[in-house]
């Protein structure tokens, strides 16, 4: 059964990847293009200033063309990402199903996992360290920024797992309805404290257009919403069929 759920998760991940790619191609790529045009302008201005001071400037060769990056490159990245998440989603479901009191049908478990996965893995970490288009971010700080981003994700996931453990304990005393709110508050308190304690990263250049930044971040958010929604809804239906042979309808 684990194998079936893993394979189905990855297949749904492929579907999610196709939808996500389509969305990003239309809504994300234009913002990336504008950001790269901005970056090029900044680089040219910097190079001109350096030359004026008599410093030789070396042109950086383009390793991968923009066309490839925006086409097959984006497609590959999104497909690998979504298929991998689909597989991990299937495995997480295999663990969670039958272990969350109150959630009986596979479809309900799948939808719950997707909603909470979206919140814990993307939404909350991105409120602290939002997605940035090209030309934002100092290459010298990439190690620190990547580490902070993954630390924030790790804290958020750990808090979410903790919330489930806590919910099991509280349910006896408070019932599942009230226990849900208590553990939601517990999760929020942990991530708010983490967000407060972790250092601020703001490397957005002063002149970077605000509208482009907003649209880029909305495109990133939309893509994640599409991926998680597809996983939650389609995998739920698929898993229900696999687990019950379509017998359960609730």
């Amino acid at each position, binding site marked *: 059964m*684990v194998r079936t759920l893993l394979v189905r998760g990855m297949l749904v991940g492929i579907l999610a990847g196709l939808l996500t790619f389509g969305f990003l191609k239309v809504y994300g790529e234009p913002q990336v293009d504008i950001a790269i045009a901005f970056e090029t302008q900044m680089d040219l201005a910097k190079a001109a200033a350096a030359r004026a001071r008599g410093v030789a400037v070396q042109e950086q060769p383009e390793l*991968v063309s923009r066309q490839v990056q925006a086409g097959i490159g984006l497609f590959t990245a999104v497909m690998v990402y979504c298929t991998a998440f689909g597989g991990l989603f299937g495995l997480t479901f295999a663990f969670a199903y039958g272990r969350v009191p109150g959630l009986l049908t*596979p479809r309900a478990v799948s939808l719950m996992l997707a909603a909470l996965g979206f919140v814990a893995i993307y939404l909350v970490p991105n409120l602290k360290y939002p997605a940035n288009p090209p030309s934002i971010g100092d290459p010298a700080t990439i190690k620190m920024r990547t580490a902070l981003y993954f630390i924030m994700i790790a804290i958020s996931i750990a808090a979410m797992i903790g919330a489930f453990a806590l919910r099991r304990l509280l349910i006896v005393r408070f019932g599942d309805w009230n226990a849900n709110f208590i553990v939601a508050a517990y999760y929020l308190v942990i991530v708010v404290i983490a967000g407060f304690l972790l250092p601020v990263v703001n490397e957005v250049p002063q002149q970077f257009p605000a509208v482009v930044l907003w649209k880029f971040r909305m*495109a990133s958010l939309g893509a994640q919403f599409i991926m998680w929604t597809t996983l939650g809804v389609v995998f739920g239906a698929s898993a229900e069929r696999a687990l019950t042979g379509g017998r359960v309808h609730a």
Partner: protein
Amino acid sequence: MTSTTFAPAFPVPAIPLRELLPWAIFAGLILLLAIYFVGAEEGATSLISGMYVHEFVHDGRHLLGFPCH
């Protein structure tokens, strides 16, 4: 841990951990590695020399929310 506490309420019992663990470890690691290649390879850390992987997945890395250069 292999038997589930809530079995009677669920239409299908939980999958025993013994059955789940090998899949979770092996498939889980491979899938995480795949995400690592999209998200962080040749950025913060590098298993392969050069910048080709980074440049190839560049747009996806930005749009999927990872820090990139």
